[in-house]
């Protein structure tokens, strides 16, 4: 955090100055470790074992916050009889279809009821939910259809099939000894972490976990964060000040670009993109994807309001509000499948908006080969990044694998405007929207992406205006009449924000998503952002100085939803609505005023009293009881066990990374059985793992990371002289022991090899990389910053050349953080010899297109 979010880290130091203890768990020693009370180096790719060990400690030593756990989590819920845990099936859950490499999650549901997830893969139950609801109608049934009613509970937490007991059994073998064997963390250090975390949790104290892509970029990444969620729920650290699981996101608006997604599987506000189904309609979609209880019960209102924002007058009740205009998914269309679609000629054109996949995406060679097979490519950036110039000076031109004259791709480079040259909002890592005002006009041909997208749409609509083809209706019916200003005809960004925030039937700004209707009388471009333009005022541009506000600082910017700063903060009060302790008071029930109040804006229906119990027929927010703080969840509770939404299991389980020098010490199942394995094309080969022959060819573990002075793929830093001077060269970090083992010289060169590719880097021999004892033998790890590429003031090989395309099955994110590799002294070979070196490694390891693809 000190390394990559230095200014945010000032608050950690403030806490430390007041007595907080800081633990840093990271394979390498960084600026964060230097300031921590305890640095815990661990094997990259073993965090679920580490966190699962803490979960086991908390359960075994009875350190959990019992009142919180019973009232606010699903610990008391009874699971179905046919559920089988990884302890029963040696590393897999019930429902695994080995042929289809997928789970049927039905057996993970609660006994007798079926709940829908608040996020994740909500389409996996589509057919069954539609069938169930249809049957209910056909029978005109009086009884509750599946998915309604309250799950059975055992508040003593002793029922053998209650979540709490299942959790206990699941983690029983995650002992300190197992943590030491798996993670390379000595037992006394691990015990120290357990003690610090549990001593600092409870009524009077809270512990926070902060993480970044070190947790997400794995073939089991979502479950890393789920393990932290399980732990934090057990300790009562969610929804309370000083608690939480904080995602430290790395781009100015990466949170915003997930909320208002440029992502294949989402519509604005985390409404799922529809998957293709027979006879799909708006009603069927909502029936299948939405929860009945909680705020997702309002999905129809959010979606109809979005369709009204998209298609305006054309969206009517008669035409299902243009629901059919939405393109449908069939499986994953993530950026990595798109690369394959480029290579096989399906995807012909590609837009890059401020992104540099030739350096920043996994398996950069595959990225470039994809782009080399396009008809056209549009690159919008500040400078000539590698993704714009690979056709004349990319690595494959050097090796002779591509020849410039043979590449048919037409490339357009369009200079982009900077943040100082346009109005707009970024959403930061704490969900805070902050407006930046235009200071000057962009020079020359530089334009904002708002300008580019608006005018591209305008021109396309003009060209298609005379079309009568049904295919063109959605783009011709689109509400696309934004006001423009100035000599450049820049669209008015505030007008777009106003559309996002929402309007009523008379065009008046809405102030809260609770006002959204499903009858077409409201429009709203992103329901969770509803109210950011309340009263016709740009709330994101509010800048009341922090010193003039309380510690919540609610009048600086605007946080979604409804300007709440801490999500699920109902959990900061006990079931009766009183703060768990005065020290940790945040919101509480004010009986005199009959409403929730406090320092933050309550994340709960404002007038629902703690003793409210909903009638059986209640729906959506009205179905939340006064003690259901997790208002987005179908049961109002925090999920220790996830009965829906995940593709790879209801409980986090340790699996080895795709390419690992070790066998899984916990189960016979080596890897996440349903991880996404993209085809092992010649440039995307996987490696043998553990005790499989050939594994010894790649004995080390590489992990990639960032430095303070550079930003992701370098497009915004390698062209800046100050920053280039501060971090002037690609390097790798190795321990003195590994340096001795492989004859690596400090400041000399090293070559790093995987089954995909080979790179070179300057050697930094340092005690910051600590060799670990894992499964009884020494493991050396190699640290690789991933900012470099061949262009800019400071150049070097891209670490992402080494990465394979085996992905997390929930998020389709690549496994950049734990890769088995080899390292050798000296520079890498040039020209065709570089390709030959990689081939030789594959031969030595006996790698085929089947290697590593087994379930």
């Amino acid at each position: 955090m000190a390394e990559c979010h230095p200014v945010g880290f000032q608050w950690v130091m403030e806490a430390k100055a007041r007595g907080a203890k800081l633990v840093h768990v990271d394979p390498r020693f960084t600026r964060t470790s230097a300031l921590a009370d305890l640095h815990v180096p661990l094997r990259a790719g073993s965090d679920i074992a580490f966190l699962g060990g803490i979960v086991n400690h908390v359960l075994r030593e009875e350190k959990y916050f019992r009142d919180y756990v019973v009232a606010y989590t699903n610990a008391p819920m009874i699971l179905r009889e046919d559920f089988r845990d990884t302890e029963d099936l040696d590393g897999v859950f019930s429902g695994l279809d080995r042929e289809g490499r997928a789970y049927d999650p039905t057996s993970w549901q609660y006994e007798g009821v079926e709940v829908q997830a608040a996020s994740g893969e909500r389409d996996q139950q589509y057919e069954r939910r539609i069938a169930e609801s249809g049957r209910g109608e056909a029978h005109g049934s009086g009884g509750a259809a599946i998915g309604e009613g309250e799950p059975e509970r055992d508040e003593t937490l002793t029922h053998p099939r209650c979540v709490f007991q299942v959790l206990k059994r699941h983690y029983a073998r995650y002992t300190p000894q197992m943590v030491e064997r798996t993670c390379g963390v000595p037992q006394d250090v691990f015990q120290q972490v357990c003690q610090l975390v549990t001593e600092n949790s409870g009524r009077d104290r809270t512990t926070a976990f902060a993480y970044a892509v070190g947790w997400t970029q794995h073939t089991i990444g979502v479950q890393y964060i789920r393990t932290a969620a399980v732990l934090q729920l057990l300790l009562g650290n969610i929804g309370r000040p000083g608690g939480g699981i904080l995602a430290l996101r790395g781009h100015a608006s990466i949170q915003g670009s997930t909320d208002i997604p440029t992502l294949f599987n989402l519509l604005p506000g985390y409404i799922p993109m529809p998957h293709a189904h027979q006879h799909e309609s708006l009603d069927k979609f909502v029936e299948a994807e939405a929860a009945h209880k909680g705020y997702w019960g309002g999905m129809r209102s959010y979606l109809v309001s979005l369709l009204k924002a998209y298609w305006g007058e054309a969206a009517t009740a008669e035409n299902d509000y243009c629901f059919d205009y939405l393109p449908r998914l069939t499986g994953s269309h993530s950026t990595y499948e798109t690369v394959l679609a480029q290579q096989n000629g399906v995807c012909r054109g590609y837009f890059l908006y401020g992104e540099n996949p030739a350096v920043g995406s996994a398996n950069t060679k595959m990225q470039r080969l994809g782009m080399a097979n396009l008809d056209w490519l549009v690159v919008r950036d500040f400078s000539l990044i590698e993704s714009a110039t690979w056709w004349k000076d990319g690595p494959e031109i050097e090796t002779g694998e591509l020849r410039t004259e043979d590449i048919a791709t037409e490339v357009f480079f369009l200079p982009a405007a900077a943040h100082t040259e346009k109005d707009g909002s970024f959403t930061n890592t704490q969900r805070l929207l902050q407006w930046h005002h235009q200071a000057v006009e962009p020079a020359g041909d530089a334009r904002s992406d708002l300008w580019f997208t608006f005018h591209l749409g305008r021109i396309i609509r003009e060209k298609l205006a005379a079309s009568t083809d049904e295919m063109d209706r959605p783009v011709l019916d689109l509400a696309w009449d934004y006001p423009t200003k100035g000599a450049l005809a820049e669209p008015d960004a505030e007008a777009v924000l106003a559309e996002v925030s929402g309007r009523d039937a008379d065009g008046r700004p809405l102030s809260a998503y609770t006002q959204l209707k499903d009858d077409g009388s409201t429009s709203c471009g992103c329901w969770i952002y509803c109210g950011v333009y309340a009263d016709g005022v740009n709330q994101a541009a509010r800048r009341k100085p922090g010193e003039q506000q309380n510690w919540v600082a609610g009048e600086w910017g605007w946080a979604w939803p409804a300007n709440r700063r801490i999500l699920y903060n109902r959990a900061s009060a006990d079931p009766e609505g009183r703060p768990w302790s005065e020290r940790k008071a945040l919101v509480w029930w004010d009986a005199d005023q009959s409403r929730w109040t406090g320092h933050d804006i309550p994340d709960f229906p404002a007038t629902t009293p703690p003793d409210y119990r909903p009638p059986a027929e209640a729906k959506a927010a009205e179905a939340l009881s006064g003690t259901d703080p997790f208002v987005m969840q179908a049961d109002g509770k925090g999920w220790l066990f996830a009965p829906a939404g995940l593709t790879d299991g209801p409980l986090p389980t340790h699996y080895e990374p795709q390419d690992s020098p070790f066998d899984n010490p916990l189960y016979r199942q080596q890897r996440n059985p349903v991880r996404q394995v993209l085809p092992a094309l010649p440039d995307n080969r996987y490696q043998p793992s553990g005790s499989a022959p050939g594994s010894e060819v790649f004995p080390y573990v590489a992990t990639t990371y960032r430095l303070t002075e550079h930003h992701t793929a370098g497009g915004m830093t390698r062209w800046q002289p100050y920053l280039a001077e501060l971090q002037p060269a690609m390097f790798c970090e190795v321990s003195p022991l590994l340096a001795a083992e492989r004859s690596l010289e400090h400041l000399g060169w090293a070559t790093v090899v995987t089954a995909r590719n080979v790179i070179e880097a300057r050697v930094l021999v340092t005690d910051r990389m600590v060799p670990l004892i894992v499964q009884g033998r020494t493991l050396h790890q190699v640290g690789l910053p991933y900012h470099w590429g061949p262009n800019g003031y400071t150049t070097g090989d891209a670490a992402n050349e080494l990465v394979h395309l085996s992905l997390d099955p929930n998020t389709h994110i690549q496994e950049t953080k734990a890769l088995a590799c080899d390292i050798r002294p000296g520079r890498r070979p040039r020209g065709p010899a570089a390709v030959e070196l990689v081939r030789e490694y594959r031969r030595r390891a006996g790698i085929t297109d089947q290697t590593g693809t087994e379930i």
Partner: protein
Amino acid sequence: MGVRTWIGSWPVYRQLTGRDPLGRGAAAKSARSQRLTSRTSTADKAVKSVCPYCAVGCAQNVYVEGGKVTQIEGDPDSPVSRGRLCPKGSASLQLTTGQARKYQVLYRRPHGTDWEPLALDTAMDMIADRVIAARRTGWQWEDDGVRTRRTLGFASLGGATLDNEENYLIKKLFTALGAVQIENQARV
């Protein structure tokens, strides 16, 4: 200039008589540096902004003089950042006004060996034609007998460095065009 002033401008004199005996501060100041003023004090305006790098969201004051950005500093009013910027944020003046930025549309024709300049209007028109064609080529009314109403003919990547309003328009336009392969760094 009187003798007294002349002597007073001599650094050694100031060092011996003033409160800077080591000659490291006021005594050593030249007439030129005496006259220097900060760019922030002469700016025509300070515009409120946000750092474009990571997601902490540090507040910036962007100083403008003569229609140009002359300085970018942290905004002390922010309860998020309290005026601080990291090395990247501090270098954002170089990011926005540095020599490495391009201001000209460039075009590489199929099989071409180098860039050619291209007018922005022409580029926009050409790109629009290509989108329409690729969309049509990759169009699928259905897949495996189920309605999809989409195109796999073109894709887009990027958004985490953009504004919310820009992402909103990208998703809206490309979805209306039937594209599904719309992605950004949040996946990477």
